[in-house]
């Protein structure tokens, strides 16, 4: 257990897991609140094109993936805000285009589709010092903005029209959410991989809201769960010799299952959850 800290690559892996585990649910809570849980998945597909672009041009894949996923996020937000011309189909195009573009460009770069596996499913042990600096800085930015702008972001995701009438810059904040999601996804690419990153944005939120009533508690507990499963997943994948990405996700889903059970038990203990209590009192 202690010996795992003797390895440089494990120390980097654990640090990357800390930043990813905190930042993915921090921004993911807003996606779930907006009922856009699958947006992370779509952005992951788009980010793959960015990775391949990096491989093709010889630039490091992480920065190019951040740029391409951010552009994709802005395009999706533009289509979403228009709310017409079948945004659903437009999104699907973007997702499939993203993954097809990724494999195609990787092919041009002389990389086989199998070579993309480490981006699709994570490869936390190959995190370089340069990657770690980028993951740390951007992860801190994501967490700071997600927590610091909570009143504004909450209002935009809860009721966009009311927020607009209140003078909140809705388009700016919606775009910010999409951009932060894109950045988080790219950062989590090394840890859990582009295909599984969405799980780390959504499952901790789904788990925490089984036992919470307030948005603030849901947000903070989701970040706690994200941190715990990311660290726990990396450690146990080392112990049982599995890939970290899938281990983290399975751990998160297990936590969700336990919380769902605890939540059901608590609701049975809490009679005030009856929505018609006030009516009963009046009669």
């Amino acid at each position, binding site marked *: 257990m202690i010996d795992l800290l003797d390895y440089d690559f494990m120390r980097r892996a654990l640090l990357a897991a800390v930043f990813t585990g905190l930042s993915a649910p921090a921004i993911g809570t807003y996606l779930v609140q907006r009922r856009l849980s699958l947006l992370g998945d779509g952005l992951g597909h788009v980010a793959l094109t960015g990775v391949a672009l990096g491989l093709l041009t010889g630039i490091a894949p992480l920065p190019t993936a951040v740029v391409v996923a951010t552009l994709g996020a802005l395009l999706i937000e533009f289509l979403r805000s228009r709310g017409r011309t079948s945004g659903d189909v437009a999104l699907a195009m973007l997702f499939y285009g993203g993954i097809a573009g990724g494999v195609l460009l990787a092919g041009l770069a002389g990389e086989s589709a199998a070579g993309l596996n480490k981006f699709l499913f994570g490869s936390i042990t190959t995190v370089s010092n340069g990657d770690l600096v980028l993951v740390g800085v951007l992860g801190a930015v994501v967490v700071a903005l997600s927590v610091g702008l909570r009143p504004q972001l909450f209002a935009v995701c809860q009721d966009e029209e009311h927020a607009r009438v209140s003078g909140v810059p809705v388009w700016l904040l919606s775009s910010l959410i999409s951009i932060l999601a894109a950045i988080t996804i790219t950062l989590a690419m090394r840890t859990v991989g582009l295909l599984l990153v969405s799980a780390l944005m959504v499952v901790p939120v789904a788990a925490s809201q089984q036992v919470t009533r307030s*948005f603030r508690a849901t947000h903070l507990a989701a970040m706690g769960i994200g941190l715990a499963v990311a660290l726990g997943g990396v450690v146990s994948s080392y112990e049982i010799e599995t890939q970290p990405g899938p281990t983290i996700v399975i751990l998160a889903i297990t936590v969700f299952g336990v919380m769902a059970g605890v939540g059901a038990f608590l609701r049975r203990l809490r009679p005030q959850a009856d929505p018609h209590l006030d009516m009963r009192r009046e009669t």
Partner: protein
Amino acid sequence: MSTSEVDPLVASGVSVALDGRLVLHDVDLTVRAGEFVVLLGANGSGKSTLVRAAVGLVPIIGGTVRLFGTPLASFDEHTRLGYVPQRTSAAAGVPATVQEVVMSGRLARRHVFRRRTAADLSAVEEAIDRVGLGDRRDSSVNELSGGQQQRVLIARALATEADLLVMDEPTAGVDHDQQITLASVLGDLVAAGTSVLLVAHELGPMQPLIDRAVVLDVGRVVHDGPVDEHTLSHAHSHQHTGAPPRTHVSGDGVWP
């Protein structure tokens, strides 16, 4: 209320098209300071579209809207405007307490990256008490009944402490006793100088408060004046299909 001498809402000659279809034709609507105006009309008459255009949620293709004397495009005194959108639910994909949702009503007054003030907290507390949800402050809105969720949305608008309240069918699903409570809350606010624009299907306990009724019919104003039996019956009896009424003349017509 020295600043409220200017009319809170003046819409003149407003036309709105949705998806290429003209929904409002040349509509005038004024809410004067301290006035309680009700907007009536059948489903599809354009009531919601008119209030949404008035608060800047729907673009207008003709006419002008002024809020507190300022053209809509340059209006930035958001603390003076409280809005209750037409909703069936106050809930979203993540739980939130009554207190948290109502706190959003204070956003126009809050600064980014600053903590909420004692004034924010007391305004939110008072608004929640006023709609009779004081004992549900820390409940998740997802756990509340439809009528209670409507009252949460009303409390959010009250928490703004605005000079003009625009409410789009706020009492749908709210039971009669609670409507009486809301009527008395609105009565107190109007007596203190607040102006109200209310979209409604039926007036119920609000009726004695109303200064003026504006009735829309297929996107045009057909009545603007006191509430009387005629207004009420007109606003209720007709169910239109959305096509403007036409006079059919038999024979060859009057023009050669």
